């Protein structure tokens, strides 16, 4: 493109991405849904009508009505309030595991891709062992070894997902590694660490961010599955998977006890997927001008 720089529309890179992102209705929808859910869960102490473990045996098995928007469970606890408090746990487990796993995965993948050769082989073959197992299975095994609880759930999900992040990040890094500006960085005597941190990683940020966004949804589902199986988060903590698990036996008569937690998980995962898609489109093609 020839010609002088058009001064009028100068935005930062993040600004450009934001503008493009908000042009897509689905992406905006995803962001809105997630925002609503996150805010509601954060404000749980303020907006929840009841405590998450406030029992009232007389109210047990109430159908959804105005007083209890999602009904009550077998111990008379308000499911809506439990959803709100439980959301804080589910969301936290999801975001924390995804973030930590992404960071660790990026470190592995970056070192493997940057140094290549034997280092690459060593790291990737080691991670391949884990990738060969289904993620969920791995999480279950780790959870069993560590023991139940929120911390256990986070650790299990994190470790189980690290290898895939490493693998996903390796290909973009390899292609950046071959670019001339990386060679230029060597030529100006930059140390390896500087090249990785300053030159390579900022340029693979887009695929990583997209991966992480989708990964949070995946992590939430995995944590929920762990709780469902009785590992991970234990009662009375109202983590969403835990809610579904304890409601299992009542599904025939009181389906709402399972439906609402399920819908909550589905909504968050859907929102994150829409956001991930939107971010990918907003960040991707035009940078390679």
């Amino acid at each position, binding site marked *: 493109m*020839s*010609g*002088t720089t*058009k001064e009028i*529309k100068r935005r930062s890179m993040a600004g450009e991405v934001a503008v493009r992102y908000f042009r897509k209705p689905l992406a905006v929808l995803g962001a809105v849904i997630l925002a609503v859910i996150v805010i509601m869960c954060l404000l749980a102490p303020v907006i929840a009508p009841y405590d998450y473990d406030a029992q009232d045996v007389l109210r047990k098995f109430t159908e959804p009505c105005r007083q209890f928007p999602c009904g009550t469970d077998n111990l008379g606890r308000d499911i809506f309030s439990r959803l709100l408090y439980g959301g804080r746990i589910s969301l936290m487990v999801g975001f924390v595991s995804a973030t930590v796993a992404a960071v660790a995965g990026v470190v592995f993948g970056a070192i493997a891709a940057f140094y290549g050769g034997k280092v690459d082989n060593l790291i990737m073959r080691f991670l391949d062992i884990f990738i060969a197992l289904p993620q969920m299975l791995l999480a279950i095994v780790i959870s069993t070894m560590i023991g139940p609880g929120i911390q256990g759930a986070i650790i299990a999900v994190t470790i189980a997902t690290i290898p895939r992040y490493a693998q996903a990040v390796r290909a973009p890094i390899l292609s950046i590694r071959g670019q001339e500006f990386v060679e230029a960085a060597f030529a100006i005597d930059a140390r390896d660490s500087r090249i990785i941190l300053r030159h390579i990683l900022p340029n693979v940020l887009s695929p990583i961010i997209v991966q992480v966004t989708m990964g949070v949804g995946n992590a939430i589902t995995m944590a929920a599955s762990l709780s469902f199986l009785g590992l991970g988060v234990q009662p009375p903590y109202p983590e969403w998977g835990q809610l579904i698990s304890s409601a299992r036996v009542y599904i025939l008569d009181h389906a709402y006890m399972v439906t609402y937690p399920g819908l909550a998980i589905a909504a968050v995962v859907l929102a994150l997927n829409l956001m991930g898609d939107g971010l990918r489109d907003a960040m991707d093609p035009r940078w390679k001008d």
Partner: protein
Amino acid sequence: MAETILETKNLSIAYVTKDFGTCRAINDVSFSLKKGHTLGLVGETGAGKTTIAKGILRLLSVPQGRVTDGTVIFEGEDLYRKSERAMRSIRGRKISMIFQDPMTSLNPIDTVGDQIAEVIRLHSSISRKEAFRRAVASLEMVGIPSERAGEYPHQFSGGMKQRVVIAIALACSPDLLIADEPTTALDVTIQAQVLDMMNDLKQRLGTSMILISHDLGVVAEMCDEVAVIYAGEIVEMGSARDIFKHMAHPYTIGMFESLPDLNSASRRLKLIPGLMPDPTDLPKGCKFAPRCSHCTQACTEAAVPLTELAPGHFCRCLCPQQKEAQV
């Protein structure tokens, strides 16, 4: 006097985008091409040469690209009045185009023989066997041995790939060939071989050609007429001799002066300061005025029309410099 095979009349094409506004890619481009002749479109990146080529073949990307004025007459018929179906039978058959990068012009999963045969079959109802036979003949015509018809593009070098591309373009003996920088991506000795071959074919088949290039050496070798394109307009046009020996427009002169010359030893190149204007923000008067050392007040006020300096030699300038080329 050879008849005219192609004529563009006041062709203007714009690209409309949300982010960058309206980009007036080409404005008021009018030229004619005689049968059997080669017209060179010379200019730099972004001048609009490829847009003209795509405009002729109606290959502009819709909805952004649109013709805002003018039309294209080919063999007496208005191409912009034809249906898309009619255009499809013209492309490849009567008018062929060669794109710049041979590395990406070929389908990597088809053999070269099949790719040529495909074009032949698209435009005639002959048997597969017959089409393949003609395809092999095409390959030999461009200097590729017939045994290689069953090979895949990745098995050929850059120069050979470009020959295949030329074979595909010429497979149906089109009346007009549009070649967009056909040898730019090639090494200089390979380029020489390919140019020799193209000249031979032109003589043999009598194909008319529009050659787009930024390389004045290639244009000098191949073209009978030349049009110099700047910021979407023709700034000078005439026979090759007019342009190379009696250049008049300051941009044309500047272009020649900024070429490092194999035959002389100068110590500094004379250069044209500045850059071509942004097509979304073109100046009101002469598009070259901001960079022109002979610019006057009148040049910046209104658009400058093409004037005929000598029979067939046109120049879009209010004060053309009659510069004789240094021999």
